[in-house]
């Protein structure tokens, strides 16, 4: 498998018809297409359908069978909308905000290994890069919030940024526990270390009893990082209309939504890579029935990581329609007085476990 690692991406990168580095562009476009497709199908449609089922409703039913074309219709509508920039808005920041936000959430896809054979950029500091590039999203949110020249937008932006910056700390320390178990920050390497014939038993989550603690901490912190309920105070409808994108409409609104769903998948993919084996098959070889070997390979890898990601997105949506929203002070309390100390504890325990136990 080591030989086939990154084979597709290397081959694509070498694809240079007429000296033009077309392959590189294709590599960059793959996550983009993926985000767009998934945001259309699973993100918006899934969210509406899941919320409907949870509330004993039907959800969108009109456009297409079971309303399956609803989001496509929505996108067509958004594309046709007039591109409105409020007169008193700061035009430059208003326009640049969604762009920066989207670039920030999109850049992290560069280091996500989508399959054993495909990773956009196999960085040696991939995990660190994925944590760090969130900073760009923060700047985009601030630009959008300030540029709108609207108090709800500004409140939403400031709340969102305060939340992201604070929750980055427990999130990063929790991921550091995973990195410590792997001994590397290279995303592909982290995946390879979790592969084996026993399937899920090789995943870091099941390798040490302590790994559950950073796993839970990262999951909770990642909810806050992508502004999902119960940490969705930046866009609390009852208080702030829609938070930092109150003033946005048309295609800019769609771009912000793409960025949101992009980050949702990003954190879900990171948690499944670091703790749940990424593109590794969870099925074990049971005696002669080599389930693990059957379900391993570049295409299967893509299938596994995307389904694991979707599973966590489903959990995020499930939580959204189950839990009430936190207050701002409760939010900060959870971050600084609960998650951060526990993250430190799990960090120390993981270090002790890694040194003394195996």
């Amino acid at each position, binding site marked *: 498998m080591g030989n086939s690692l990154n084979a597709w991406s290397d081959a694509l990168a070498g694809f240079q018809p007429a000296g033009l580095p077309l392959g590189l562009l294709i590599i960059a476009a793959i996550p983009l297409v993926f985000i767009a497709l998934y945001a259309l199908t699973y993100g918006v449609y899934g969210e509406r359908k899941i919320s409907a089922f949870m509330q004993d409703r039907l959800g969108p039913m009109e456009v297409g069978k079971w309303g399956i074309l609803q989001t496509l219709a929505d996108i067509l509508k958004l594309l046709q909308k007039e591109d409105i920039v409020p007169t008193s808005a*700061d035009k*430059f*920041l208003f326009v*640049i905000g969604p762009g*920066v936000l989207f670039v920030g959430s999109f850049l992290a896809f560069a280091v996500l290994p989508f399959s054993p054979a495909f990773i956009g950029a196999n*960085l*040696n*500091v991939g995990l*660190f*890069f994925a*944590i*760090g*590039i*969130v*900073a*760009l999203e*923060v*700047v985009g949110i*601030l*630009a959008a919030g*300030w540029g709108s020249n609207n108090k709800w937008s*500004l409140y939403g932006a*400031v709340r969102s*940024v305060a939340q992201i*910056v604070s929750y*980055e700390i427990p999130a990063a320390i929790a991921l550091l526990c995973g990195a410590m178990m792997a001994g590397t*920050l290279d995303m592909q390497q982290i995946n390879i270390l979790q592969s084996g014939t026993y399937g899920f038993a090789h995943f870091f989550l099941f390798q040490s009893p302590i790994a559950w603690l950073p796993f839970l901490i990262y999951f909770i912190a990642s909810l806050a990082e992508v502004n999902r309920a119960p940490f969705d105070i930046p866009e609390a409808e009852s208080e702030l209309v829609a938070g930092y994108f109150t003033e946005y409409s048309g295609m800019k609104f769609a771009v912000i939504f793409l960025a949101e769903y992009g980050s949702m998948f990003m954190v879900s993919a990171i948690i499944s890579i670091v703790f749940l084996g990424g593109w590794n098959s969870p099925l074990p070889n049971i005696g002669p029935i080599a389930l693990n070997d059957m379900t391993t390979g570049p295409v299967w890898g893509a299938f596994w990581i995307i389904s694991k990601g979707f599973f966590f997105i489903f959990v995020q949506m499930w939580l959204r329609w189950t839990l009430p929203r936190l207050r701002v002070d409760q939010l900060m309390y959870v971050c600084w007085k609960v998650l951060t100390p526990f993250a430190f504890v799990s960090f120390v325990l993981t270090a002790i476990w890694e040194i003394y136990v195996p």
Partner: protein
Amino acid sequence: MSNPTYTAIFYLFAAITVFSAAFVVFSRNVIYSAFSLLFTFFGIAALYVFLSADFIAVTQVVVYVGGILVLLLFGVMFTNNIMDTDLKTDVLHAIPGTFLFLGILAALLFTFYTTNGWMPSDTQLQGSVVERIGFETMSRYVLPFEMASILLLAALIGAAFLARYDNGGTNEH
């Protein structure tokens, strides 16, 4: 690094860094200055990548964009009437300032271009540096590492003290 593509990309990032830094200084709008700093920081991170210091590059993004720039923007946004204030000092020593700037610039450039006594480092970096950084931090540079932890603890305590709401002494006389 003789590849012309590399050279072109290097100069692109160098130009982004320099021009956005100039914009930071010359812009009259303090918010634009702050946002322009984003491009400066990213340009510098890209230059670190050219020095094959990938870890430093990502750290630059985390610390400067995620920390300092956000702090700066918060500071600007929470200050009253910041957009109405003209960004000019009352005392402008334009002429001595220009002379000092040109003098230092000339001295530095002259030094860099005329000196050939620079010592090449004995370790030529190839590829990623993150493992080496990890190892060196825990061996040769363990004392500065621990020192930095005390420094940061002191800074944290000081920041907490300065930020805390304080309405006076415990026992007024």
